[in-house]
């Protein structure tokens, strides 16, 4: 039996973020919350292998109660159980504090039912940090493979897996002992269209909610703001440089516009490699 554990996060859909032009503040209103896309693919991979090998998929998330929607979506996608770790005291966590809470939670879930593989997304699109996965693996002292793009094999007997990892330069085929953690890119699995019975189950499903009160005993100093070494010191809007000159082809004609633009580029010396030395 294969037991996969998947860490999923709810994120604001960054493609929909707007800035109030007057105040320069972020308009959060109406920005939809979505399932972090990489996590969804990671979950799809876990479910795919559960269907192949038999077993179950447990999903875990740390966040406010609104994350329940995301955990229900995980059930819709084929997860069997879902846990939300949620407490006001966790608020304001940076990646170090987040990885602490997740690691302790996973440790506990592993005691209940030993885990063979832990799936994370390669990064969460709200912060794009890609830090929590390696952080959790470090805390649990587990082998980890980041940027996983394909699971070639999971051998529960021999306790090992063969996984492909994509880097900037090549694809590595890596053999790892179980239990292992993967942080997954989108190619790891396609997200299937959930069967109706799974959707119906998800709509009725209430994830188990764990808090500071238990069952995991968290160290108060390591969670939330207190457990976060970094703080946001200030926020601002990006600065814009001075714009350069605009040449309108309608006014001067295409030929002259291009000539002028190239002349400027040449005198700035950026065409020297193409045309020989700058004037």
């Amino acid at each position, binding site marked *: 039996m294969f037991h996969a554990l998947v860490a999923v996060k709810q994120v604001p859909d*960054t*493609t929909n*973020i707007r*800035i109030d032009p007057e105040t320069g503040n*972020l308009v959060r209103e109406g920005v939809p919350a979505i399932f972090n896309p990489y996590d969804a693919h990671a979950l799809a991979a876990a479910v795919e292998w559960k269907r192949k090998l038999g077993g179950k998929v447990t999903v875990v998330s740390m966040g406010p109660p609104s994350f329940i929607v995301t955990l229900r979506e995980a059930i819709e996608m084929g997860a069997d159980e879902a846990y939300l770790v949620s407490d006001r005291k966790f608020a304001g966590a940076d*990646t170090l504090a987040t*990885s602490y809470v997740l690691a302790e939670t996973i440790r506990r879930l592993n005691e209940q039912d030993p885990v063979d593989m832990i799936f994370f997304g390669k990064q969460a699109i709200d*912060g*794009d*940090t*890609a*830090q929590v*996965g*390696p*952080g*959790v*693996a*470090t*805390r649990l002292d587990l*082998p980890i*493979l*980041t*940027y996983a793009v394909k699971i070639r094999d999971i051998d529960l007997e021999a306790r090992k897996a063969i996984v492909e990892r*994509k*880097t*900037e*330069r*090549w*694809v*590595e085929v*890596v*053999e*790892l*002992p179980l239990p292992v953690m993967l942080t997954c890119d989108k190619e790891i699995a396609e997200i299937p269209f959930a069967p109706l019975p799974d959707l119906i189950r998800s709509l009725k499903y209430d994830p188990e909610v764990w808090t500071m009160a238990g069952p995991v005993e968290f160290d108060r100093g390591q969670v939330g703001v207190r457990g*976060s*070494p970094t*703080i946001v*010191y200030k*926020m*601002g*809007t990006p600065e814009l440089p001075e*714009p*350069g*000159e*605009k*040449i*309108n*082809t*309608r006014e001067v004609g295409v030929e002259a516009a291009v*000539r*002028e*633009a*190239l002349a400027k*580029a040449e005198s*700035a*010396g*950026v065409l020297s*490699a*193409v*045309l020989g030395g700058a004037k």
Partner: protein
Amino acid sequence: MSTRRFWVFIEQEEGHIHPVSWELLGVANKLAADVRDEATAEGDEVVVEGVLLGEGVESLAQEAIYHGANRIYLLDGPVFKYYRTRPYSKSIAKLVKKYEPEVFLIGATTLGRDLAGAIATASHTGLTADCTQLEMGEVKGAKHKLLLATRPAFGGNIMATIVCRKHRPQMASVRPRVFPMPERNPAAQGDIIREPVMVTEDDAMATILEIIRNEGENVNLEYADIIVSGGRGMGSPDGFALIKELADELGGVVGASRPCVDAGWIGYEHQVGQSGKTVRPKLYIAAGISGALQHKVGMQGSDFIIAINNDPNAPIFEVADVGIIGDLYEVIPEMLKQIRAKKEAQA
């Protein structure tokens, strides 16, 4: 007297240095300069040091010194031949413990991001990802200047400055091409300190069975000198034929905005911008790109920008050195014609 250490992770694979390492040595020197007065006043010394892991990479350590490191800690051994999270992160975490650097910068490459998260957790410290500005600045209540790490947040709409008050090192990951490449100085002197390798192959818990290379596909956008990028304004994937023609003529490479990549007009490796590559070519030509914030953050560091757009109010003109208001399908062929004529005239 104590030593304030500014560390940079020197990234290499198969003996090739990732250039971001040099860029980071450049910033580290700038950061060191930010605190030099403060340190001198207290009788402290400020140094920029690199951490280099690999197998048979001593010559690279020398290169790092030419690029601005005062000292290199070298971990050389077969277990480091290829990057694997555990041997790298465990070994570096030990060095961190031993030398207690004040600041530690790592390139936000696939390798660097993986490593940075693991080291920060093992060292129990804060890490700010994907920074675009770094400085050492005074923060109320702090005795010494702190690292002010600024990074885009919420889709690039906001710049957030993050500080790590108490924990050390203050870690930051930085994308390639955000900071300029420092001059190589072959006269520079520095020490290379060989550190003992304390991890074994068994500790790695990952065996690389095979490496599948796909040389043809590699687009070296980040380090290209000339980039010609096309956007949704091309109207169709065919536009890239024209873009490519111009790029080839200029000896440059092809870039793209995200919608083109999302629509499958061109591969992801060509994407410039926040969720693609940050580039800093000498010349960047943007054709049919509106200049959304997320695109601009990826290219505004270019030396010279030419924007071609038929909308006079397109925001891309805000960052362009020269803006041509016109139809790219008229402008680019004309550009090709004039460049060819110029080349011929030279020959």
